[in-house]
Each structure stands twice: as structure tokens, then as C-alpha cells.
């Protein structure tokens, strides 16, 4: 049984998908990692870029938005080798297995960059309960996502989103987050059932799941399963810092008709869903 569904909250739904994404959360020097899902800092940074806020500007209201991620396709981790420079002074390079430094002509550094390939996420942005005034901010964000100040990317510059990034402004964003077509192909008939995971910075026990779907225990979804260090305090290049925040998880089994397929197929099922879900009056698609 689900807990009493949360009251309807307006918000935006985003479709974060592309061949590659990379949501670094504890990258250092030559090892650039990626989280398995869009981080808070990554999404807030994307909104700031759309709004045209420079890195030194305060994050303000954006930092308070609630972000709920639905993992449509988890993707796979891709490690990319990138060589850097060469010609570094020996003392500045990595230590060899013998505990020595390399000689002057073999000091090229190898940088390992991790990407999430083939992943797709549906992301809900909703106001935090104590600052409902953020509805105005969300509307501003929607405008900015339609015509961003800077080209947007999924965590790293070489990872542009494909297709529609902004799906729509909804009067009840979480309701639609649960029901919107999943950007993945349906599991093979007779094969194992596939669950879709939700990841959020707020408890997920009150997620408005349809009554007839199988979902994980709401009691567990009411408590954080981990903490993640991705709450940005400033994007200033010299002062960039992050704070920890709780991570809540929940899974559910989408009904067979909810799998939207890939590429053009997904767009078609999305258009059909929005046609029926957004009669004139609620939100605006474009």
C-alpha cells in the first residue's frame, strides 16, 4: 500500500538523454568519474546556464528546487582515455611502479574520463514545500530551457542532450513523472519484468503511483538510503563547494503500455501521451 499521495505540485519535467552523459561528483585531476544519475549540482548548473547566470553569480532559489529523477535507462559506464599535454616537469607527473619519476620525454599524462552511455532519465523539478514561491522561478526556467543563453549539456560540454530536453510545465509534475512513457524498449514478452527506479532528494513514500502498479515498500522510501555530496553552494571557479544531502530511492514496475521505445518511437508515444494528458489549460507544451 502506498502512503497518502502528496498534494499536487506544479513543476517541470525534463528528458535527459543522449549518447553520452557525465555527472561528476567526486572527480579529481586525472580521474573524472560519473554518478549513475544526474546530480543536483549538474541539474542546477544546467538551469543556471539556461538562465544565463555566470559561474560567479549566487545560486539562490535554484538551490532549493526539489529534483526527482526517474531512471528510464540506467545506461553503462564508458571509460575514455584522454592524453594530456606531455612535457610536464618530471616532479609534476605520476610516480612509476618503481617509486621513481619518469624521465623528461615520457611524461604525458593519461586522463580517464567516465561517461554514462546509453542512459535516459526523466527529471521532475518541483518547488520545495517551504518555498512554494518557486513556481515563478520554474516558469522562468521553462522559458530559459526553450531558448537557453548557452548551449546546454548533460554534465560535460561534449554531451549535448538530444531531442526535447524540456517536456512541459505540468500542474502536477510528480503525477506525470510516474505515468509518462518510459524512454526504453519494452522487456521481451515472457522475459524477466523490469523495474524503473526513482531517485530523489525528498522522501518518496508519497509518490503518486497508480493504484494497480507494483512498487517497492513506501516505508523504506520514506528514509534516505545514502547521502551524496552534490548540493552546490556556489559554482564560482575558485570557491566551488558542495554539501551532502540525503538520497531516497524507490522502484516500480511500469505497465506494459508505458514503454515508449527509442528515438522516433519514443517521441511518438510522448506526443500521444501529452495530447491526452494536457488538454488546453494545463501547462503548455511549447
Amino acid at each position, binding site marked *: 500500500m502506498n502512503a497518502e499521495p502528496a498534494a499536487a505540485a506544479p513543476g517541470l519535467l525534463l528528458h535527459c*538523454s*543522449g*549518447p*553520452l552523459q557525465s555527472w561528476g561528483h567526486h572527480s579529481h585531476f586525472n580521474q573524472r568519474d560519473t554518478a549513475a544519475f544526474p546530480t543536483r549540482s549538474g541539474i542546477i548548473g544546467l538551469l543556471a546556464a539556461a538562465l544565463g547566470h555566470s559561474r560567479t553569480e549566487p545560486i539562490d532559489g535554484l538551490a532549493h528546487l526539489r529534483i526527482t529523477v526517474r531512471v528510464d535507462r540506467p*545506461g*553503462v559506464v*564508458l571509460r*575514455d*582515455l*584522454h592524453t594530456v*599535454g606531455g*612535457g*610536464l*616537469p*618530471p*616532479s*609534476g607527473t605520476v610516480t612509476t611502479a618503481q617509486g621513481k619519476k619518469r624521465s*623528461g620525454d615520457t611524461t604525458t599524462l*593519461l586522463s580517464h574520463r567516465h561517461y554514462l*552511455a*546509453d542512459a535516459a532519465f526523466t527529471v521532475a523539478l518541483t518547488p520545495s514545500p517551504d518555498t512554494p514561491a518557486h513556481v515563478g522561478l520554474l516558469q522562468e526556467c521553462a522559458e530559459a*530551457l*526553450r*531558448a*537557453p*543563453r*548557452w*548551449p*546546454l*549539456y548533460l554534465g560535460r*560540454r*561534449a*554531451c*549535448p*542532450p*538530444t*531531442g*526535447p530536453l524540456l517536456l512541459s510545465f505540468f500542474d502536477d509534475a510528480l503525477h506525470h513523472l510516474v505515468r509518462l512513457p518510459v524512454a526504453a*524498449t519494452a522487456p521481451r514478452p515472457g522475459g524477466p519484468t523490469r523495474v524503473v527506479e526513482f531517485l530523489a532528494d525528498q522522501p518518496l513514500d508519497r509518490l503518486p503511483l497508480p493504484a494497480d502498479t507494483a512498487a517497492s515498500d513506501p516505508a523504506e522510501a520514506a528514509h534516505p538510503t545514502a547521502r551524496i555530496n552534490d548540493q552546490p553552494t556556489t559554482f564560482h*571557479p575558485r570557491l566551488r563547494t558542495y554539501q551532502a544531502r540525503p538520497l531516497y530511492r524507490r522502484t516500480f514496475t511500469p505497465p506494459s503500455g508505458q514503454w515508449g*521505445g*527509442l*528515438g*522516433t*518511437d*519514443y*517521441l*511518438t508515444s*510522448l*506526443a500521444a501521451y501529452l495530447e491526452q494528458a494536457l488538454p488546453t489549460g494545463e501547462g503548455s507544451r*511549447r
Partner: protein
Amino acid sequence: MTAKPSARFLCAHVLQTVPFANLNRDDTNSVKTVQYGGVLRTRVSSQCWKRAVRTDFQQRIGQTALRTRRIGERVSRLLTEERGWPEDLAARAGAHLAVASGIKFELEEKEKQVQVNKVIGNALVYVPQTAVDELADLAEEHRADLEKAKDIKKSNDKSILPKDRVTAVLRTRNGVISVFGRMLAEVDNAGVDGAVQVAHVMTTHATDIEIDYFSAVDDVTDDWNDSTGSGHMGHAEFSAGTFYRYATIDLEELADNLGADTKAARELAEAFLHSFVTSLPQAKKNSTAPNTVPDLIHLTVRADRPLSLAAAFEKPVQMAQDGGYAAASRDALAQYADAVNTFMGDDGILLAGWTGLDAKDHTGLGDRHTALNALVTAAIETAFVVGDSGAAE
């Protein structure tokens, strides 16, 4: 009055078929790959293709930017070779210039001997080629001081040259830097956000990696016919396929980087489009000669936002009945472009056009142009049209 381009983004989409090749290798010499739509595809990293574009672009616009840790040594060499400075003094001048940049440095060591005045910066500077001359001029101006100055022997030695004037040179930019950007945290306000965004390149379909076993014949062994052994054996990896390539130019950022010089922005945007379309990474070029040209180029000029069409190939393209992926890839691109423009609305598209080898029409990709030049010219003219205010140019 500041002139701004009338459009915001210029997107380039290219389909290009490349035969048996390995344009971009990973650390094990393998072809780079990526999973997309559940299948493995061949990939060329954005960094790799971007370097090919930049090399072509520099030739096209007749400007070069220099990326180096050895800026001091470079200036020293100019001073001795072109301005007749004695070697010792030139070396000292170069070292003082490099130290004045404020970038932390080490001195080169050879056989455990510190090499005086051989300054190697901890960060690469990225400057217009002309900066070498400007720094040499600065050294000329201070020649008397340099003659009296000490050599640079330790990594905490100070420069006698004016730091602000040296860093001012390191902050200069040219067309190349304005387009591709620069990251240089060590010098204040030297960073330039690039005006182009280039995506990783990948095939529109699943690919297999071919392992090519080879042996090299030893000519003497062969002549004497005294053994069957070869001189060398090995293997190399290759793959073939139809690639989707995507890049976008942020026209406003480009104009900002150029101090609202719309004429320069227009020329650079045009050169970038040509370079992006025609360039090819050079890895293993002598053993595969993969010198193909794109078979479809689609350009859009947009007032709203850039848009990659990679999702056209999220569902991998299937080989045609009589073989080949190129025609099916072109159809998939046109079909997706049509669907996504219907879904998102096409109000933001100021111009859409394409050119290529196809005899058939692709309405989803806008107007057909007979040649690349005509397509690029049309896109540039739309992007830099004189606005209502008459501000552009």
C-alpha cells in the same frame, strides 16, 4: 552600438561513411566504441575530431594559436635566430618572461643537472602565434635590465620583467581561441568560453571491430629464401560505418568573444562550418586512406536553442536489404528531424537546409541545396542578416 548576430545558434549535422579505418584509438590501440540503443557502435571522441577541425580551421583563416609549456624557450629561440641576441642573454630573457607569467614552474634537468633558464611551466599557455613576437618586443625594451639581471636557477626565483605586461600578452586572443575557447586558470581573466560545442561522433548502427592480423616480410630472408619466418607479426583493429557528427556554434558567445565584431564572427562561423564538414582525423591515415567526404550535410540556423539529432539513431539503423547503412541513415535522420520539429515546434528555426548525394528529397531537413558552398552561404546569410534595428555589420 553593439552589433549582434540576428540568430542564436547554428547547428551542423553530418552523415559520413568511413571505410575500414581506425580514426581514433584508445590506450590499447583498439577502436573507440560506445553503447547506444543497446548495441555497440564505433566512436570518435569529440576531442579527436575537434583537433582535426581546428587544424583545418587554422589553415583556412591563416591564423594559428600556440599551446605550449615552453613559451620562454620559444621566445629565446626567436631572439637568437631572428634578432641576433647572444644565446645566454636570450635564454635569460625567455626565462624571465616565462617566470613573469606567474605560472608555477620547474627547471629542466639533464643528468641530474638543473638547466639554468630552461623554464617549464606547470600549465600550458594557449596564445595567438603573434604573442611570441610581442614577448620578444617586450624583452628588447628591457634588454639593458636583462643584461644586469640574474639567471633563473630555482623555482622560486623572481622575474625582473613587468608581470602585468607579460600576462596582458598571455590574455590576448585571436579567432582560433575565440572559437574553440581557452582554459587557463593560472592567469587571471585568461579563460575564454569556447563558442562551439562538438559532440562525440558515433555510427548510426551497430558495428563489429575487425582484428587485422598482419606480418611484415623480412626482405633479406625473403631474398635468400632460407626460412619461412617473417620479420614482424602483429594485429591492428579497424571498423567501418556511417557516422553521425554534430556541432553547434553559439553565435552570441562568438560575437561576445570577439568584442561584437560581427564581420569577424561571420567569417569565423563560415570557416568553422567548412572545416567541420571537410576535416577528418588523421590516425592510421597512411595504412587506410579513409579520405571520404560526407554524404549528407544538414544545417539549421536557430533563434531558440541548439538541437542534436543523435536520437534519430538511438534505435540502431538496420542494414538495407541490398547492403549498406548510408541511405537508411539519411532516411532516419530526416524522419526524426520531422518528428522532433513537429513535437517541439519549428518557430525557432530560421533556416533549415541540406545538401548531399541523394537524388531523393528529404523534406524533414528543409530546402535542398545543390552544393556545400550554397548551403553554407545561405546559413551564414540568415544567421547574420541585418536585423530590424539595422545593427548587424
